[in-house]
Each structure stands twice: as C-alpha cells, then as structure tokens.
C-alpha cells in the first residue's frame, strides 16, 4: 500500500514549479492579469514544450501517457503559480477524446492537442446553473448543434470545443465553424478566460463516447479544480505567513500576535489535511470507478470551499493593502472563486455526495 507520491511525481511538480518561477516572474503575472486576456501564446508554447499540454494523452498519440493523479499534481502547481492559460479546458477536451473518441478522431486530434499546437476546450455549462449532463439542452441533430453554452473556457481561442449535448453526448466543434458565435465574458478570474457560445446549426462531429463519458469528464474536472484550489490555498498561506513575519505594528512583527498566528494555523489546518481528498479522488477516477463520482464531488465541494474561506482570511491578514488591486493576493482570491463555482458550486456537490452515498 502506498498513499503518497513517487519520485517521478515529485519531479513532475518540481519541473512545473521551476518553469513557473522562471517563465512567470511576479511582474509578468501582474502584467498578464492587468491585460486581461488570460493568455500568453509564448508561455503556452513553452509550457507545451515541457509536456504540460499532453500529460494524460496516451504515448501512442504523442502524449506522456500519465494518469489523472499526475495531471492533478500538475494542476496543484498551476494553482500555486496562478498560471494563466487554457490548461483546464484543454486537459478535459483531451481526456474526453481519449476516453470517448473513435480511433480516427483520436488520431486526428490527440497529437495536435498533446503538442499544444491545437488548443482544446469544453462547453459544459448552460443557463440557470446547469452543469450536469442530464440537464444539457443543446441539441445535436443531423450533424448540427443548436443552443447556447455558457462559461466556456477560452472559447474564443480554442481550436476545438467539446460541446455537451442533450442526453450527455459530446460533439466536437471546430474553430470558427459557421453557425457558431463566441462572445467574450468579462470573468472575475483574469487568469482563466471565459466565453459564451451560441450555436445555430454549427456543423460538429459526435464522439461515439460510451455512456458515462461526459460524467467522467465532469468528475475529472472537479478533481483538477480541487487540486488547483489546494495549490492556491497553500501558496496563499505561505505568502501570508511571510507577510506577517515582516509586517510590523505596535513595534513587532504581527505574526507574534496570537490572534494572527492562530488565524494562520486554523487556515493551514483547514487545507493541509485535505490534500488526500484530491489524491484519492484522482486515484479513484483511474482505479476505483464506482467510487469516483462521489470522491470527486467530495474533493470539489470540500477543497474549493475551504480554499475560498482561506483566501478571505489571507486578505484580512494583509490588512488594507490586501483590499487593493495592486496586492497580488487577489490572483488567488479570484482563482478560488472560479474553482468554487466552475463545474457546480459546493452546495450542488454536497447534494451529490448525499445522493451518491445512498442517504
């Protein structure tokens, strides 16, 4: 029994950490955040060079052939670094094609996704808080899509978009297809762009996906958001601890005050013991499929909610400066907001935890 990381997994995290430190110094992250597109083609290309675009794509299609746990560990570091870019939608599109695509579809798309030459995304949400596939209303008839999708990551940038359709189907829509229209959404998290997709007869190609594929894509996404939240929250705790060691009031570093120290200790204690939740959920997705939906919902509900709490505590501990646009803490506050809401809020996930538990 081994419930821990391998040396390779630790090395993977180290590689991405070093990549982020060298390619995304604080001023560059700040500039990207202020610019607001959530994307830097150079950064994306370089991250693809170290393999980030194709971690779980099978080796036979040009990827690294790793498992969801490895991808989640990568997302932990993306969360830590608040790395802007289309990683989430891209990873889920690649997983969807690998799980549910025909051989021909895999050969056509996976190598391009794995190399980062093509960017993928997923169009899952619909109006009125719809995320679950059972509630999807976009029609796919005679090879054409009709309906609306909301909050599609990097909709304007993606070369291919996996569109969720009535009955839990998935169809691949290529960029600029006639009958599709993309509008940018002014998203709260400027490290991850969003768009709205209007479909009026756009040509698309269905995945022959076996039943449950769309659910598995949603579950994988929830695991990745939980991992991202963990990384971001831990990063905030560390930077806030550092801030309280240096910020002086009443003639002493504020970390000396128990009120401050205990807030940080409580924040750390909310997050650290939850690390195993996303590990387990990622493991279950690969090895214990019958446990996977509930494990993913638990990790998503718990970690994204706790991370949001912690991000607010960290703003408070920064004092006035924490409330300003110029303070970098906001990157993680807003990333936590995205993670909490995207793919269904904690309240919806908790209801699933209860249902799936047979309660």
């Amino acid at each position, binding site marked *: 029994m081994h419930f*821990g990381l391998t040396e390779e997994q630790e090395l993977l995290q180290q590689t991405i950490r070093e990549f982020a430190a060298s390619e995304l110094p604080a001023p560059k992250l700040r500039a990207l955040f202020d610019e607001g597109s959530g994307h830097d083609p150079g950064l994306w290309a370089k991250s693809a060079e170290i393999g980030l675009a194709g971690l779980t794509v099978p080796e036979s299609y040009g990827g690294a052939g790793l498992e969801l*746990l490895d991808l989640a560990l990568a997302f932990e570091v993306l969360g830590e670094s608040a790395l802007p870019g289309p990683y989430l939608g891209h990873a889920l599109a690649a997983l969807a094609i690998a799980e549910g695509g025909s051989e021909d579809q895999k050969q056509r798309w996976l190598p391009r996704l794995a190399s980062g030459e093509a960017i993928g995304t997923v169009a899952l949400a619909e109006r009125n808080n719809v995320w679950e596939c059972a509630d999807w209303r976009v029609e796919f008839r005679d090879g054409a899509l009709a309906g609306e999708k909301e909050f599609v990551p990097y909709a304007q940038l993606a070369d291919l978009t996996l569109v969720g359709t009535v009955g839990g189907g998935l169809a691949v829509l290529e960029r600029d297809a006639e009958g599709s229209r993309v509008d940018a959404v002014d998203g709260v998290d400027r490290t991850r762009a969003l768009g709205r997709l209007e479909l009026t007869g756009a040509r698309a190609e269905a995945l022959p996906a076996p039943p449950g594929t769309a659910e598995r894509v949603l579950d994988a996404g929830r695991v990745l958001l939980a991992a991202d939240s963990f990384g971001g929250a831990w990063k905030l705790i560390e930077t806030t601890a550092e801030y309280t060691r240096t910020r002086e009031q009443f003639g002493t570093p504020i970390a*000396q005050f128990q009120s401050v*120290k205990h807030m940080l200790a409580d924040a*750390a204690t909310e997050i650290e013991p939850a690390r*195993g939740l996303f590990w387990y959920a990622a493991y279950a997705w690969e090895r214990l499929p019958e446990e996977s939906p509930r494990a993913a919902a638990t990790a998503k509900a718990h970690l994204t909610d706790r991370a949001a709490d912690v991000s607010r505590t960290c703003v408070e501990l920064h004092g006035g400066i924490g409330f300003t646009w110029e303070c970098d803490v906001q990157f993680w506050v807003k990333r936590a907001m995205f993670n909490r809401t995207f793919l269904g809020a904690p*309240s919806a996930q908790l209801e699933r*935890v*209860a249902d799936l538990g047979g309660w």
Partner: protein
Amino acid sequence: MDLSFGPEYEAYRAEVREFTAEWSAHAPLSHERAAEFRDRATERGYLYRGIPKRYGGSEREFDAFREAIVAEEFDASGLPWRLGAQGVGMIVPTLLEIGEEWQREKFIPGTLRGDYVWCQGYSEPGAGSDLASLRSSARLEGDEWVINGHKIWTSDAQDSNYMFGMFRTEPDAPKHAGISYLLLEVDQPGLEIRPLRQIDGAVHFNEVFFDDVRTPADWIVGKRGQGWQVARVNLKYERNLGGGSMMRRHFNGLLELARRSEIDGRPAIQDPVTRRRLAELEGYVRCVETTYMRQLSATANGEEQKVSLPILMNKLYGTDTREKIARLGYDLVGSDGLRAPAEEDLKIQSNTETVTGWVDQYLFSLAGPIAAGSSNIQRNIIGERGLGLPRDLRSPS
C-alpha cells in the same frame, strides 16, 4: 499510488479476523479471559510487536501495515485489547526509550498483561497549558523521595497501581530544569484521591493530593532535573494514540441517528439542510481518513518527514471534527436535547444509541479542545513549528 494491501497482507487480515471471530464468540470476556485473549494475541504477534519478548512483548519486525490491520480488526471486533492509554500507550514506550533495565523488567510485563494500571500526574490546578510551572514537589530524604502537592485531571486514579508524574525536585533551578520524572505506588498513606465530577455529570477524572507520600530514590526515569525532557518523549506517544477508523465509526453513528430521527414527519436524512451538513462532515471525515492513510503509508515506507506537517495538526483536526459530529447529533435529537444524560450514557462514552447519549456527546466534546494539549496550544505549535512564525511571549524551554 496503490491502495491495495496485496495478497500477503490480505491473508494476514483474514487470519486476524478469524482469530477475533473465535474470541468474539465468547464475548463479553471476564477479566481473566480478557487477559488470556491478550496473551494469545501476543503469542501470535498481534500485540506489542515493538516490545522485546523478555518484557512480555512479541518482538516482531517493524511492520506498520500489520500493526494497522490488527488495530482495525481488533477495534471492529470490540474485544478488550486496548489497555489503559497511560500504561501501554505512554509509560511502556517511555521506559523502553529511556528507562533503566530493572525498571523495564519490573514494570513492563505486568503493564502489558493488564495487571498494572497506571495514572498520570502532570497537570496541577496552577499548571495547565503552562505545565512547566508545576509546583508539586519531591525532596530526597535518605533513600526515598518525599512528595507533597496536588495533581488534577488524573484519569483512572482509583483503579491504578502506579502513577508516573512530574515533580519539582530542584527548586532553585529554572522552571523547566527543576523537574524530575518519578514513579510511585498509588495505594499508600498520604495519597488521597478525590473524584472530580465533570460538566456532563460523569466521573472520569480525579484530583490527587500528596501529603508526605514516599517513593524509592531510584524510581526516577532519566536524571534529576530532566523530567521535562522525559515528559516530551512521553507526550509524543500520547499524541500518537488516535486511530484511523475511529472517526468513521463516530460518523456512522451520526448517520444512523439521522435515519431514525424525524424532522417534520420525515426521516431527518431526507431533510435538505441535514443532508448538506452531513455531506460537509463527510468531507472532514474523509480528510481524517486520507490523512491517516498518508501517515500510515509514510511510516511504513520510512518517509515520515513527508508527513511532519499533518502530524502537527492531528489533534486539532480530530478534536474539531469530533465536535462537529457531536453538535450535529445534538441538533438531530431535537427537543430531547432538553434532557440530561442518563446514567448509562455516562458509563459508555460516546453512546450513539440513545438520544441522551448525544446530549452527553454534546457536553463531553467540550473536553476535546482542552485536554491533552489545548487547541490554542496546538495552534501555537502549528504556527511556530509548521509555518515558521515567531514564538510568542513565553519563557524559553
């Protein structure tokens, strides 16, 4: 990552389970039969793996998984394998680590058999979180220590043969350097035990008064003035006492309560607010379970440094989660929350079967943030050792 134990360990689990099934058939066991059960378990290597045979242990190669499997299966069986936490859990490992040879031979075998029961003499009315400020004293007179003072929160004192404790032997030394770690017999003139009735009405703890109580000069663990260091070894074991599957059992008790309680004429488990609160708690319980799995895995694989941070958090996290369970349980009993705990609830700690058992849990869970290193002390430790924050205003240890 691989969560299967593999065929070797699964076979071991099956063997342990067969053993517990045989003994469970005779439950409840008399005092003598319980001792015999533990002897047989020790012969098979299920108990006391880390303790040499000459002290009554089974002296097996270190194997964290076998230990964990035995703990899980024995706990699930409800058989009386866990002896008083102070004896097997605290004084035995302390003597093994720093005791004299004659002390190990004299005290360990009887403790492992359950013949010797121990109590702990640490806290005093004036020395709680600031334990090193303790004032109960011992002075050497000829070949005996003469002990005077007052200890509190002493569990099992009436049933104990022996006490281990900290006493001030060097009154002129700085506070941490003036303490010695002594062993003494409980049943002797000058030692008075007064039961302490706690907030829920139960009596688990005592006060112990010392009026010229005596113990031999060589019943000291470590050297004079080193009692604080000895106690730190000892407290390390106290913090390790928590198990992995315990929290899940408490939570399952809560789920059962939610199934049989009613809200607006329907089972509480169908009530949306209750479902949400239970699901939120499920997250916390999963955190406890998976953190335990991380620690078990790291211990078994010699990677304990990788879990040093969550280990610092075990006490605080466990306490908080237990309290959440108790409080939701109290809400679910509804108007019956006006009742006082019944006698039977006070005898069985954490009785999940009766409504008043949950009233008792509501009250008893108040002890968690106070006992065995208060939550605020845990927060200091997490902040300082875990997050590298500066020490606050305390005298250096």
